[in-house]
């Protein structure tokens, strides 16, 4: 599905953000990307759809080398890669519907998008997605009028509107409270399972990563230092990724710290949708 081969990124300032990163993501797999600030998580995600140009190495999406694409081919590839951002990156002054429909920009002509005349199928899909993320009533509101959790749901709908083959998710919960963060993570992972959609999700919160993803990749100073099942993430490995620290609380699964840490499957349907609607 996605194969990254010895990807390296050196910024103009001389900082080496990525140093020979290689891994493969199978279809339908949700991968969590963890590591300290500045370890290259954002750069890695942005190198995959070339919002950041990698210095060397290759990225294969379905055996297509993304790093060698010309400009128009890159655009065609990008429209199949959905992206969800840390600060939502919605167009604040546009309506929720326009934000969701902007996921189709790669498919429609400039004039159609300028006049907001999207094909009926795109509009149908947008309404269905808004219903899926529980924002049907907010369709005509400006994005700036929504709360953080609602905005990130719009971000998710925009990414899915692209009909993606791959989701790139950069710190989706960093600006959200713990409860909303869990709901957003649950929504992203549920959608991925429903559509058998592979995803790479960078996360600050190791606990969230352990709770939701199939596989974890740990980055440190631009290199992969861990790649495996969430259950294998122990004190030694956390120390290797982040440095020396007392990790006991994470392994206690935080029962004392956070009341809202029950596994998604144990929640009733009502509770799961509580923050979404």
């Amino acid at each position, binding site marked *: 599905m996605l194969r990254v081969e010895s990807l390296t990124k050196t910024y103009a300032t001389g900082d080496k953000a990525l140093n020979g990163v290689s891994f493969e993501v199978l279809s339908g797999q949700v991968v969590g990307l963890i590591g300290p600030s500045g370890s290259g998580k954002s750069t890695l995600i942005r190198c995959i759809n070339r919002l950041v140009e990698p210095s060397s190495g290759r990225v294969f999406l379905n055996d297509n080398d993304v790093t060698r694409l010309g400009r128009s081919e890159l655009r065609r590839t990008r429209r199949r890669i959905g992206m969800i951002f840390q600060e939502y990156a919605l167009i604040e*002054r546009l309506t929720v519907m326009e934000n969701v429909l902007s996921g*189709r*920009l*790669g498919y429609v002509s400039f004039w159609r*998008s*300028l006049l907001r005349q999207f094909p009926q199928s795109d509009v149908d899909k947008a309404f269905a997605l808004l219903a899926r993320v529980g924002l049907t009533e907010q369709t005509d509101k400006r994005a700036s009028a929504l709360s953080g959790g609602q905005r990130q749901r719009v971000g998710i709908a*925009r990414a899915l509107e692209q009909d993606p083959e791959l989701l790139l998710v950069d710190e989706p919960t960093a600006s959200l409270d713990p409860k909303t963060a869990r709901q957003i993570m649950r929504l992203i992972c549920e959608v991925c399972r429903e559509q058998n959609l592979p995803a790479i999700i960078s996360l600050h919160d190791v606990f969230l990563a352990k709770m939701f993803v199939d596989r974890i990749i740990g980055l440190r100073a631009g290199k992969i230092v861990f790649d495996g099942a969430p259950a294998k993430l122990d004190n030694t490995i956390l120390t290797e990724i982040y440095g020396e620290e007392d990790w006991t609380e994470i392994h206690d699964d935080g029962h004392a710290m956070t009341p809202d840490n029950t596994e998604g499957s144990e929640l009733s349907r009502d509770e799961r949708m509580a923050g979404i609607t």
Partner: protein
Amino acid sequence: MSNAITHARSWKRPPLIGNAWLRWAIIVGALVYLVAALSTVEVNWERVSLGLSQGWRFVEGFLAPDFTSRSRDIWRGMEESLTMTVTSTVVGCLISIPIGLGAARNIAPLPVYVVCRAIIAVSRSLQEIIIAILFVAMFGFGPFAGFLTLSFATIGFMAKLLAEDIEDIDETQAEAIRATGAGWWQVINYGIQPQIVPRLIGLSFYRLDINFRESAVIGIVGAGGIGATLNTAMLRYEYSTAGAILIMIIAIVLVAEYLSSLLRKWVQ
């Protein structure tokens, strides 16, 4: 515990210039220069006393404005000025949009950027009066020269502020649109335009009221409008008429100011 409190108890904000010698040298130097510069200004007190009485006649005219005896000239001048103002603002703003886009480093390639910045620099470095003299020489007296002058000045002003606005946008919004596979024009339309339109509208109205004031000034060098009427009134020593014109200019600028602030609030 008791010997933990060993830190100082007085505090002063650190001075802007750390070196005391340099600080005092700059302060004393500035004062000496100011006194020296003032002492070189020659004042002809006889001329001043003569001018004061002339100035007082002007103030008297201002206090007793005469709107009627030259009302036809005033209305024609006002009409010309307002036409010049509105047309030049619309044309100037429309032309400034593509130039502003080209002059924003974050979206334009380097050659386009250099050309657009050069256009802005030329437009901004030439003062309205100089341009007006040039256009009057090229196209003759009258409002057409004034219209061209104001359009030209508007381009530099609007394009520069627009470009700076585009450079200050929230990049992640444009990045998100780029990530969907959108083309360059779509990124402009979705990722950038919504972020700058409120300010673009506000600036256009601000420029409208600048252009009206400028139209009064460039009339003096022959570019038509209320400025020409004002100039004629002054040359004829008709200070009451001049006062009336000035009052009308002030009134229109105030109204424009008020309307533009209302509009800006509405588009926010």
